[in-house]
């Protein structure tokens, strides 16, 4: 492989990473909106069953796509945890604002 070919592949990977980060940002923003909608409807913002379903769905997609299923499960539990924190932060801020 030529050096320019390797540089091109690295640039591709960097572009994918940027897209991934952008997608994570989008996911967190969507989760915050979902938390606000749940609060407005008087529902609890956290939903263990839904989180587990997200991970199971990701694992099934990984299986279909030929990716290592357990590693994808790990990744999605991380992602779910990260999003939950964001939802909770949004809830805590809303609760504080209500108290003020």
């Amino acid at each position: 492989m030529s050096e320019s070919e390797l540089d091109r592949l690295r640039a591709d990977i960097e572009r994918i990473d940027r897209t991934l980060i952008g997608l994570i940002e989008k996911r967190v923003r969507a989760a915050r909106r979902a938390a606000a909608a749940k609060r407005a409807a008087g529902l609890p913002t956290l939903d263990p069953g839904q989180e587990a379903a997200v991970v199971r769905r990701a694992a099934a997609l990984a299986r279909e796509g030929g990716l290592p299923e357990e590693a994808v499960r790990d990744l999605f539990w991380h992602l779910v945890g990260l999003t939950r924190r964001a939802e909770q932060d949004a809830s805590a801020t809303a609760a504080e604002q209500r108290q003020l």
Partner: protein
Amino acid sequence: MIIVMRAEATAAQRDGVREQVEASGGRSYAARDGNRTVLGCLGDTDALSEDNVEALPGVESVTRWRTPYRLASRELAPPGGRTVVRIGDGPAASVGGPALLVVAGPCSVEGPEMLLATARGVARAGAAALRGGAFKPRTSPYAFQGLGLDALRWLAEVRRVTGLPVVTEVLDPRQVELVAAHADVLQVGARSMQNFPLLAEVGRVRRPVLLKRAMSATVTELLLAAEYVLARGNPDVILCERGIRTFEPATRNTLDIAAIPVLRGETHLPVIVDPSHAGGRADLVAPLAYAAIAAGADGLLVEVHPRPETALSDGEQSLSLDGFTELMRGLAPFAAAAGRTLVPQPKALPEVHALKGRLGPTCVLEDAPAAEAV
């Protein structure tokens, strides 16, 4: 090793240090201490010389770990100095902050109606979360072992109708995801505290973990068990002192009150106390609970049963709903003396009879992973 960066160190200098640590085969975790970054290095960092690291740009000092646990140690505390674990909505359902967390409920889930009656009663008295065992680790193989998946479904359904977050024990690493689909907090019981595959699995699923001290475990062993969970990436660990085994037979266990301030000095993780298992007698629950809060505990885990005399397990140490209400009333001055707040959130919960039809043994949760049950 622990690397403290200078307050004026740049992000590039911090990244440079982390690269060095990772190039030597270790991993680094960043925490904030005031306006400085503290890098805790884990794994094999033998190839790194302290002198060389200290000479790197932006580094203020390098010290060796003081303790065998790392992520649980005070050196890697989050901003504010203490981990606050949120287990539900609202300030009452978090632990480690100024508000005390009180989790209450039956030792075992015996049926949907008793669970709902207990949930309503404890919520009215000020509990912020519901406990209830679905899988029970019993000393004898012939004792009641819990109602398993049915109990999990009832817990999830009661959670849905009352809004109370649910804490329940997981015994088997293969059932962690199943329990995580139904509960807000995964409890690792005293008998499982050193079940390392279980600890790794609950570390993976990113659900808050309530880790109970084994009856013969030292404080360091408890913190190393917590380290297993933290090292898998789950930062939300709640420690629970529930009495240790001593020569004294007058109580089921001996509540190690000193462990509370010792743990709070050693770790940033929240510490709660289970006065029910510690004393093993209903009449000891209140005095032990008050002592725990006075000694600095962040919360309580209390066994409550609507009719303790008929309980299938641990009836002798369970409080009735009236007993629990009395306990919560008596707790207020102790909480105030310890500088803590109690956030009773009396909930207008539906009457039990209105829900009976919805909570029968046939109640099925949408998307429950029944096929994955062992």
